[in-house]
């Protein structure tokens, strides 16, 4: 039943841009981008409780790989290179940081995004001499949307599979108590690393796929830290420990921020801040858990994270 329903839903989503105008399709591209970002973020950060603020580091690197290679290599190869770069970077970052306590991981990932941006800016200015780059790819907004939709199916599919697999159980144990996890036979470091690499690779691909939308790319555009913050708040608002939680957070928040940034551009950060506070004080397990609690007050104990 669930499969049929999901298949129909995705089919409907796939034909949606055929009926939406240019503005509508543009909106769908942005929306689908955040759906994938938030879902991919939650894949790792939900169960392990490692809050990563490095989303934009990977996202931006993905976009930059496309910007650098788009005129040299065929598009699928460019995407492959982007994924490879993201995975390699995640491997290095993961190997060095996943043994740190959670709080240091947060700070590290925050610094990482800035470091990558500074280094690329410096490299472009001083070595290649071009701060901005152009992307000439024959891709319409619709093409990009479809790619992102495919990535969303892939991400949610991976999330669904992990949840039912041994790996999903291991992740939840790690989120609760790493010492117990290790003593139960779970290779803690490797499990975290695998998930981090999967999550970061998907995030890199989102940046790569969305890159042609900008046409002109420079570090301050693709390494905008707001992307990291929005991803975190979307996943947490919906509930980072549920398969559909990040989607449930990404859709309303994206539309809300889209509407607000058109009407009240100056109030964006206040609103973002209030969202974080709302998640901490009012919806600690996300909207989906709160809805469930309203519907079935008796399960309150069981859904406690």
């Amino acid at each position: 039943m669930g499969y049929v329903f999901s298949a129909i839903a995705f089919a409907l989503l796939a034909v949606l841009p055929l009926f939406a105008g240019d503005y509508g399709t543009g909106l769908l591209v942005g929306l689908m981008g955040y759906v994938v970002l938030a879902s991919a973020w939650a894949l790792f950060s939900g169960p392990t409780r490692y809050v990563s603020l490095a989303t934009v580091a990977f996202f931006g690197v993905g976009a930059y790989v496309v910007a650098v290679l788009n005129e040299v290599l065929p598009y699928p190869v460019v995407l492959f290179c982007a994924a490879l770069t993201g995975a390699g970077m995640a491997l290095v970052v993961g190997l060095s940081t996943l043994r740190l306590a959670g709080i240091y991981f947060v700070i590290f990932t925050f610094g990482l995004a800035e470091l990558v941006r500074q280094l690329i800016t410096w490299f472009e200015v001083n070595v290649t001499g071009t701060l901005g780059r152009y992307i000439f790819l024959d891709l319409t907004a619709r093409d990009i949307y479809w790619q992102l939709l495919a990535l969303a199916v892939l991400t949610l599919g991976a999330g669904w599979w992990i949840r039912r697999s041994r790996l999903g159980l291991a992740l939840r144990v790690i989120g609760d108590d790493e010492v117990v996890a290790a003593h139960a036979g779970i290779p803690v470091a490797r499990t975290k690393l695998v998930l981090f690499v999967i999550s970061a690779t998907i995030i890199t691909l989102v940046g790569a796929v969305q890159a042609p939308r900008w046409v002109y790319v420079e570090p301050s555009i693709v390494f905008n830290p707001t992307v990291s913050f929005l991803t975190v708040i979307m996943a947490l608002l919906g509930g980072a420990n549920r398969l559909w939680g990040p989607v449930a957070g990404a859709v309303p928040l994206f539309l809300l921020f889209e509407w607000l940034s058109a009407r009240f551009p100056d109030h964006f950060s206040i609103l973002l801040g209030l969202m974080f506070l709302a998640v901490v004080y009012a919806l600690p397990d996300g909207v989906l858990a709160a809805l469930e609690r309203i519907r079935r007050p008796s399960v309150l104990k069981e859904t406690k994270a």
Partner: protein
Amino acid sequence: MLASTLALGIILGGTYALLAMGLTLQYGIARILNLAYGEFMLLSCFVVTGLFTAWGIGPLLGLLVVTPAGYALGWLVHAGMMSPLLRRGDAGRLEVDTILATFGLLFVLQGIMLIVFGSDFTSYSYLDQGVSLLGVTVAANRLVALAVSLAIGLGLYAVLMRSNWGRAMRAVALAPQSAWLVGIDVDRMGRQGFALGGALAAAGGALVSMFLTFSAADGVVFTMKALIVVIMGGVGNVLGALVAGLLLGLAEVLVAAFIDPGLTLAATYALFLVVLLWRPTGLFGRVGG
């Protein structure tokens, strides 16, 4: 060239140390990593600037106004925002919850400052004539800021090491689980530590406003630099923060002078990431002397 670079580095580093001292108290004693720390400082920068430009009240007098205000604000934030989280009693989530809450506070404060003060860079002229010191010319305001920073830092260090209150503070930082056994009210100490951190943030803001051009979006950079110093110096370690601050100042100035000014911020982050990986407990260990 080298002498003046070193002098600049030391002066910059002294300011960084002051920046970090409040954060190290908040994190070391109250156990709360306040990501809105830079916004506290920035708020103080704007208030001091306002006092100076509107009524001609100098920043050193302004310092006397904003420091108690910073204490009060820190106290309020702890009582209103952090206590409910501490009372939840879920140690596993507390860390993430306080990070997210102060993160939210960061954006709210930043947004309010953007609306009230606009997004332009702000600065004012105060004691900006050059002073020759050992053959190196530096702006007088930087020297004054450094001297006041050092006075506050060493004063705080003396109080922490010598007074009973300071001993209690250090006990809480060292062993929060057992400090209550010797009659210390850990919760009250936590709140005082957090409030004191707020006061130091305000003092730091007042001092840097004398020589720095700032805008409403700069809070994150302050927080980041303070964090770097705190972690390099060892959490809760006031003297460590002083040394780490000087190191950071020197590193930045040296990179800017001898490698490439464009790499200053990158060097900062790189230094930070290396310290985090190499010695997450800081160059000088945790707490105390």
